[in-house]
């Protein structure tokens, strides 16, 4: 009963206006995204159908059964796309292709850019702020539901590579940043949380490490400001960089999970790049955030901290700081791996997991709306000074080294198959 009471924060009704704003914003943008996608697919179909018909006729005449079936399926898919847009072969919707494919103007970009624009140009009344802050973590149920996309062999393969990559980059970055901060006279409090934030997982790691290293509220604002600024920049730059360099979907997912410092932002970047990228990013991020308790313990050791009345033993820290929602994610992976008929799978029509697969994107959309609407340029300006330079330098180094690492590892080890 007391747990139930603890779940409900006093004054919870304050979140309603902001949460509704996130939901409405997400609804509008998802509809625009759906419309752009529909006309883009119709545009592609309009040009491809004549070619497919010709090739199908050739394949049928040649008696190539495999090609006939494959081409037949593709033709059916394109005809369906054209019918949805109410169009005919020869019609063009190049504006949709330009926006959706060339500019990658999808729901992720619209929610983030739109949210930033609304927040910083028009402003968001303070009545909405509590609800917007609640909107952001709604990405977590989306991540849990995404568990239906994976099976255990994915976790062992991609997760194994991910844990190794994550451990090397996390501890390498944290050590480098903490050492540099000490070297340049930055306070232990700010250095500790910068190390945790740029090493592990941005804001969560900062919040987890702050009380242990005695960081001041101003230090937290600097650290969070740096993380947000860099995370936002990388979120917009990396997908375009990745496409320009021909980085594969799974490689990009791994790269985003290593280089972008905030769960919500890295999922946004990976989702923007593609479904495969997102699947890999979520799994590697799961490996990364499980290391948050370890980085807290590491900070204690690095700064030679005494307990100061806090219980900062290893198991106590693990218990307090472990991201519990990840257990839900792994439970769904386990259930999917069992292949139960009663639950089905994300591609098996009429089953619960198939239905859940239709839902997760909406949690992401509300979460991205919350992110966009909460990015204040003023807050980001709070980041400054030596700690900002060190943190940014470390984040940039991690981005470059992470890219090199995923290019060397290659796509296969990082690809989530989902049992397909």
């Amino acid at each position, binding site marked *: 009963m007391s747990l139930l009471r603890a*779940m409900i*924060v*006093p004054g919870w009704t304050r979140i309603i206006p902001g949460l509704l704003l996130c939901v409405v914003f997400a*609804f509008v943008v998802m509809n625009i995204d759906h419309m752009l996608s529909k006309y883009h697919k119709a545009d592609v179909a309009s040009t491809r159908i004549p070619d497919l018909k010709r090739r199908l006729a050739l394949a049928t005449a040649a008696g190539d059964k495999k090609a006939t079936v494959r081409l037949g399926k593709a033709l059916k898919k394109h005809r369906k796309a054209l019918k949805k847009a109410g169009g005919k072969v020869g019609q063009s919707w190049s504006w949709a292709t330009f926006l959706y494919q060339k500019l990658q103007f999808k729901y992720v970009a619209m929610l983030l850019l739109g949210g930033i624009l609304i927040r910083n140009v028009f402003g968001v009344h303070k009545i909405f702020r509590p609800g917007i802050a609640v909107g952001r*973590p709604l990405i977590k*149920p989306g991540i*849990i539901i995404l568990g239906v996309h994976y099976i255990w062999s994915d976790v062992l393969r991609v997760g194994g590579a991910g844990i190794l990559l994550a451990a090397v980059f996390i501890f390498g970055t944290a050590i480098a940043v903490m050492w540099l901060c000490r070297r340049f006279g930055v306070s232990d409090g700010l250095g500790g949380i910068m190390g945790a934030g740029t090493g592990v997982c941005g804001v969560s790691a900062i919040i987890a490490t702050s009380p242990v290293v005695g960081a001041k509220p101003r230090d937290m604002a600097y650290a969070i400001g740096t993380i947000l600024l860099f995370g936002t920049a990388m979120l917009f730059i990396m997908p375009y960089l990745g496409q320009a360099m021909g980085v594969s979907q799974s490689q990009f997912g791994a790269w985003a999970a290593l280089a972008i410092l905030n769960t919500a932002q890295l999922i946004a970047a990976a989702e923007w790049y593609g479904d495969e990228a997102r699947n890999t990013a979520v799994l590697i991020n799961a490996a990364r955030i499980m290391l948050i308790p370890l980085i807290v313990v590491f900070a204690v050791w690095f700064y030679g901290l005494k307990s100061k009345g806090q219980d900062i033993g290893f198991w106590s820290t693990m218990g307090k700081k472990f991201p*519990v*929602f990840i257990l*839900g994610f792994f439970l769904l992976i386990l259930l999917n791996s069992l292949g139960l008929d009663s639950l089905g799978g994300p591609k098996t029509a009429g089953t619960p997991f198939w239905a859940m697969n239709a839902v997760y994107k909406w949690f992401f959309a509300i979460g991205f709306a919350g992110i966009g609407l909460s990015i204040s340029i003023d807050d980001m300006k709070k980041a400054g000074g030596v700690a900002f330079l060190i943190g940014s330098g470390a984040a940039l180094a991690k981005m470059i080294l992470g890219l090199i690492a995923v290019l060397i590892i290659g796509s296969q080890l990082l690809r989530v198959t989902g049992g397909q």
Partner: protein
Amino acid sequence: MKTISSSDKGAAASLTPEKREDLWAILIASGVLVVCLVAPDAIHNFFKNLIYLL
């Protein structure tokens, strides 16, 4: 104006914000699973078709 009781404040303080978020996430995902167990076709149709007006 409604005042917040001290016992309510105490109960809320026993969970960190992150833990509270995580538990709500698990609760919401569980709710989605239950609803999808009961009516998978309706849920799929709603989120893939009905909800889109454009």
